[in-house]
């Protein structure tokens, strides 16, 4: 079970994921300022250490530099979060989610076709 993270923490995770799962502190700083965040240095350190505490990041000291490595991949995180969403809103039924997506036209016809094919293939294999 992956612990819940705040939006700002997720922002940091995205940067780490985007740089191949490992990023130096300085790199994170840089990406943040590129993305237009003007957070204080200590704020970022606090957020990073929270992520470490929650088990999403691992920290590694290289000389005087701090390197952060993602323990959880972006895909795993997404899957986990989807599961949380499913459990919370659809009582574990993926069907319900899909139907909501279709009803709200958040899923195009092509997407649906693709999904269907994927599902049938899965069934065949069983």
């Amino acid at each position: 079970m992956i612990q819940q993270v705040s939006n700002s923490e997720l922002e940091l995770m995205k940067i780490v994921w985007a740089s191949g799962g490992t990023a130096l502190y300085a790199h994170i700083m840089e990406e943040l300022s590129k993305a237009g965040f003007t957070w204080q240095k200590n704020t970022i350190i606090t957020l990073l250490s929270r992520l470490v505490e929650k088990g999403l990041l691992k920290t590694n000291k290289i000389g005087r530099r701090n390197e952060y490595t993602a323990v959880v991949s972006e895909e795993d995180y997404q899957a986990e979060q989807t599961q949380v969403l499913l459990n919370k809103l659809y009582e574990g039924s993926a069907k319900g989610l899909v139907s909501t997506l279709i009803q709200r036209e958040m899923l195009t016809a092509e997407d649906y076709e693709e999904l269907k094919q994927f599902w049938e293939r899965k069934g065949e294999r069983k």
Partner: protein
Amino acid sequence: MSDVLRIVFSLSLSGTLLILVLFLCKPVYKNRISKRWQYYIWLVVVARLLLPFAPRENLMEALFDRAGQSAGNTIEQLSRSTDQAEGENIDANSGQTSEIGMASEGSEAALTEQTGRSAGQGEKEDGPADFYAAGGDANDLNTGHAISGTDSGVDSGADGATSGFTEKILQYLWLIWLGGAALLLIRKVTMYQSFVKYIRAGREEVSDIKLLDLLAETEGQMEIKRPLELYTNKLVSSPLLIGLFRPCIILPGTDLPEEDLRYTIRHELIHYRHFDLLYKWLVQITVCLHWFNPFVWLMGKETGRACELACDETVAQELDEEGRRAYGDTLLRAIKNGGMDCFREPVVSVTLSESGELLKERLGAIADFRKVSKPVRALSFVMAAVLLLGGVMTGAAAPVSENLSKKGGGNAMPEGVPGKDVGDAMSGKDIIEDASMETLELKGTTYYLVFNESQLRAIGTGKYGLDKDYMQQADIQMSADEWEPIGTMEEPFTGSYNGNGYEIIGLTDAEPAGMFGAARDAHIYNITLRDYNIERNKNSAEQPDFPILACDLGGSRVYDNTVYLPDEIITGVQGTDRARTADEIITGVQGTDSTQTAAAGPAAQEIASRAGEYYENGNLPEFGRAFSVLDESSQKFWLETIYADEKIAFFSVSLQQIETGSPLIGYYAQKAYEDGRIAFFSVLTDYMSKDMLESWQDQAAEEGKFNFESVLLTALGRDWELEARQEEKNRQREEEYRNVGITMNGKLRYYQGQLVNIFLDMSQPGKSFYTLDMNPDGVVNVKIIRDENGKIQGAAYMTDAEVKELFGDI
């Protein structure tokens, strides 16, 4: 009475005296002296209550010395000392002048000291009276054996009847004390733990970036390096700081006006910066150990108040009139339910009315805030010093068994009173010298300090082994007793003895031996022997004279020793220089016109003149000492020499004597920078002012001298910038690599599409750092080719010979 109790009671009584002084003087200093002083001054009392060290002679020692035979007396003392009528004191004191023996002289000195101080502070009348009572009573008891019909006499008589039973109780009384202290401490710790658990369970991380930034910004302003965690917990009534090892701030909620949050954070951070949590625990431990003493409990309460007041004062200091008003408002809003405390410890709960009263005091203090003037600051410094001295003098009673050795300064005395000085000042020279020695830790070596003849004679006996390091700390006048040389042929001296420039006067040597009999691999230096009595040696003309070391069994270093012969001998040996270095005598150079050393001059000059010698011998610490007494031009000369010789260690030692930011530092910084001597420059950064560092940093950045930049950024504490610069540098280099066909995928390097096994880049020819990456899966070995200026020319496969050469080193 058991030894443990003796110490505890004496510490408690001693601390109580200080507590009383502080409480009684409070009306005087309360509104005049800074709140921070009023807060930290209690540390003196806490130290007195916790540290069982004291000078050899002190009030408590005198008090407990003889009176301690019966605890009945002592307890009587404790109660009587506080409520004795003034008139009785005078009686006791007048008796004292005629009756007191040697031992109580010390306590008398301490007493005068204290009464003098109390009077000087303009204390209330009853203050010194109460205080005097304790001391007066003590002397009364000391001399009580001589004064008939005093209370103590009667008491001990009464005690005698039930002595068997009381004795037993007294024997185990210390267990009761220990049990009480342990119980209380455990209770406090477990209550604290459950409190922490309670806080932890309901806390939530603050994820509001605005608030986190506010915290980070305030930390930046207050130069707090370590970021604190910020939580909210709806269960707490007011903001608090908690966690001794990982401190964090806990807010009741975040739905407060920004102003309130700002002041709250500032307030809690000041608690953090004041080390208030540590302080509180220290006080709690003190209270636990002195649980039987109501004054200590009172002190615990008082420090809690003082803590908040000191914190408020620090906040107010940085605010203007309007800001202070706003801060007061914040406080008022926050304290509605309790108080803006740093960890309101759940053990001693604060009742509402009390906290209301404290709030009133705090608000009053904030409103009346004014900067403390210079003279007042000076005065508060003096007062602190006086109290500290008072703390040292009231002292503690040592365990009976330790008493003898303690007299000689066997106990370390962290109050910084060297044993000898106190001994001489307090009780005169007649005190029997004791052979136990204090020790001094210097750079990992334990030196035994030699102050007197007994200690000198103790070398080679008991724990003062022949392999230890000794350092003389005073001139020593020897008695006429025959000297037993240190070390024999069978058991030679193998340690070190540093005479430290002090003299040993009148060493009487019966045998034709020296101060040291035999030594191996020893280190004997800086000894001065005056009036060395070699009567017999002189007559046996055949035998050479070895005043310092008679026989070296090999490997010893004996130098810088000086021997002054007694006058009658000098007149016997015509034309002899009065000072002959022992080294000459040892080597048998018995000339009448031996070269004179500067030994006759003051020690400082002598050392200075030896700077050259120390430098040649590589004797770093001695050189450092010598350097410190040199005049400015000599210092410049030496710095120049050292710099030219590239002796970095000597450079570092010498710089310790140079003022930070002095022009000399600037001069060498310039030089080292231009010469590219990064090591020297790095040493210099420790002595540069912030401005200097910054201007050098600008220059180094401009000129792309990255190694200097990294040293400077480290010195400036701008580590983050350093990391960023390194990062940038790495990126640049990777780009350069790419240009010559080396690419990077994750952590794997490729050269023209082939996975690289060994990757070598000698960044700068002749420099010791280079890049070497290895990947066992790789198939090719590649090196970067650079020109003389370090510019990358290209990449090439490494030949087998080159690979071999590379690993030949490893």
